[in-house]
């Protein structure tokens, strides 16, 4: 009997535990009745919680509040936001990247911060315009200035008697000359352009970030038309960009369709087997490359020029929830995090480009021109409705083109047809 009683009690404890697990949202007041601000950020560096907490303590003291920071892994960052939104449990402020914004702007989950931005802010914050999207200031840039750039192997270029490329013609010519069999075994072992076009575990959009947006912008077009009601990447300039990318295929590794972009960079360009490779830059690139590729003699071109300059430089932002209890305090925190005092200290630990005029540049000298003379050569993604859907499909069509299943015009037209249909449905819903 005793045993049975214990069993039943244990079962009851389990059930109550189960029910308690389905608890509601946490309180907005923290310890000692202090205002509580919840914040979600991804793993921006290896120890973001340890790095940010001491820097946030000063804000907490000065404003008598408590910051509840949750660091989420990149892999399911969007999922966490989506499920949080579904359960009405979003943070007061959070980190978002461009592709995430449209859905949350549309649903009114994030607030337009325009009213909180002063003339001094406009003067001080270098990239504020990158957070202006879909007719509002929905983002406050927190990570930027690390665009995808074209790295080149100086030894290969010197051997070919070539200068760093400036135009598409230069680039293609050098690629052609660099692609060759260097050891005489009849097989090509040095390539012009180290491309990996298999998305693998990387987001499909990474392929566009690394290889295609730059060509699209350099040829003078963009993703959407200005009214965001249709796409324009299949116009003459867009097709020219696709054709140019396709024309580089002979200078890519034979297995580029099997290689992930980062693998192509590290195993081919990094090992000195290609003249060019593309990856995201870092303000401490010299140290990173020295460690990973000690024998590589490298330099970089921020952007080539065709009709225009252009390469993808993500601008990830802090955003304000429209449900925040105290938006003024939340905005103060956003400005504090992105401000000079916080970021100067943080960028000592984790590299990054200065976000404000008063923040000193702390990176490598070699990389500094990205945030000075080349600052206008990179841009964030044009934010528009159905972004992920349209762009993922564009990446798939480009894969079909590179595989030889479609020509450039057909691939771009098919991607545009899909995109226009998605946008038509989206706008029809709005009406």
């Amino acid at each position, binding site marked *: *009997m005793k045993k049975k009683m214990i069993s039943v009690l244990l079962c009851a404890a389990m059930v109550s535990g*189960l029910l308690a697990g389905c608890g509601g949202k946490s309180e907005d007041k923290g310890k000692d009745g202090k205002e509580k601000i919840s914040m979600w950020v991804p793993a921006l560096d290896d120890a973001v919680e340890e790095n940010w907490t001491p820097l946030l303590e000063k804000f907490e003291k000065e404003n008598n509040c408590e910051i509840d920071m949750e660091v989420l892994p990149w892999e399911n960052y969007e999922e966490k936001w989506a*499920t949080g939104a579904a359960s009405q449990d979003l943070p007061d402020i959070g980190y978002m990247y461009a592709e995430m914004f449209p859905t949350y702007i549309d649903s009114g*989950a994030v607030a337009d911060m325009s009213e909180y931005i002063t003339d001094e802010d406009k003067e001080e914050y270098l990239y504020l315009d990158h957070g202006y999207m879909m007719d509002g200031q929905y983002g406050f840039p927190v990570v930027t200035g690390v665009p995808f750039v074209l790295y080149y192997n100086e030894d290969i270029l010197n051997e070919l008697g070539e200068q760093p490329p400036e135009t598409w013609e230069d680039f293609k010519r050098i690629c052609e000359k660099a692609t060759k069999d260097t050891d005489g075994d009849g097989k090509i072992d040095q390539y012009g352009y180290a491309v990996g076009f298999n998305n693998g575990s990387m987001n499909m959009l990474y392929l566009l970030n690394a290889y295609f947006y730059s060509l699209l912008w350099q040829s003078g077009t963009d993703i959407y038309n200005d009214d965001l009601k249709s796409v324009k990447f299949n116009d003459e300039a867009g097709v020219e960009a696709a054709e140019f990318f396709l024309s580089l295929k002979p200078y890519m590794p034979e297995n580029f369709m099997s290689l992930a972009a980062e693998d192509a960079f590290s*195993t081919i360009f990094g090992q000195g087997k290609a003249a060019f490779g593309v990856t995201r830059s870092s303000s401490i690139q010299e140290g990173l490359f020295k460690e990973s590729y000690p024998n590589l003699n490298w330099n970089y071109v921020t952007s080539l020029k065709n009709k225009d300059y252009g390469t993808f430089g993500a601008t990830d932002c802090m955003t304000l929830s429209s449900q925040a209890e105290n938006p003024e305090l939340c905005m103060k925190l956003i400005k504090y995090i992105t401000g000079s005092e916080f970021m100067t200290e943080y960028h000592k630990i984790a590299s990054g480009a200065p976000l404000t005029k008063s923040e000193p540049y702390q990176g490598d000298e070699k990389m500094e021109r990205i945030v000075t003379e080349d600052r206008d050569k990179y841009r964030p993604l044009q934010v528009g409705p159905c972004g992920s*859907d349209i762009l993922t499909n564009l990446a798939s069509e480009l*894969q079909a083109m590179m595989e030889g299943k479609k020509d450039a015009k057909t691939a771009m037209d098919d991607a545009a047809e899909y995109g226009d249909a998605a946008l038509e449905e989206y706008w029809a819903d709005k009406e």
Partner: protein
Amino acid sequence: MKKQRKFWRSIAPYGYVMPISLILLTFVVASLVISVIFSFMKYNLLLPPEFLGLENYKRLLTDEKMHLALGNTLKIMIMVVPLQVVLSVLFATLIAARKNSLAGKIAKAAIFIPVISSSAVVGTVWKTMLNGRNPVIQGFFSAFGIDTGMLLGSSTTAIITVAMIMVWKNFGYYMVLNLASLTAIPDSYYEAAKVDGGGVMQRFIHITLPLLKPAIIMDVFLSVVMSLQSFDLIYTMTGGGPSNSTLTMVMYAYDQTFQNGKAGYAMAVSNLLFLIVLSLLMLQKGFMKREASEI
């Protein structure tokens, strides 16, 4: 006192089953019901759902990408299930014959290791091995005329490659199930067959296979369900590419929910998959019943 004891005795079983019943009701039955309800709605996880009637299901009929995902899922099932079951029976028989030898034990453990490995890890390792820059792997496969560097990059071979890796990863699981059934077959059957002059093949065909039939039917069913739900291994190896050639239904539903904000439609896709699995379950139940009556 006696009455009280009787009362406790009568309600105790309900207490024992209550936790698991609550878990099942909350996470299985409720989610199934919610999925059916939301599949008739326009729902993006952010805004309140709007009733759409049969729109999401009508869309299933015209959505070419969904048809592609359905086709790919079925292709994977067709490639994976027969091979997985045949290999599992074959290896179970071979290992059962050497069950007490060291080689048998090592083989059993080696075949089972991929089963307990994380799919994401297996996917990443295979992707690295198949990047064409590993001379040992490249050399081995080139002996069969296969260029490993191209396998995941072509929409023709990518799906075959991921299917074969799924077979490699999972057949050990079915092999262990089959081994359990094989050990239940009395040795006296084989001894009697030997006395009657039955050879290895005859013993396999007339004793092993018939007695293993219920286990094989179970293997087929589980293998079908697992292959229809394939996601993580493919996600890490190809992400559904190149050009959607390895996009499966589960992956499509995932993208629709978390990338495109079409959770209602994703639930319709998931429900279609559920119906396919359910009909196969019915079929399997029929087989099992017939089998039981034959035995």
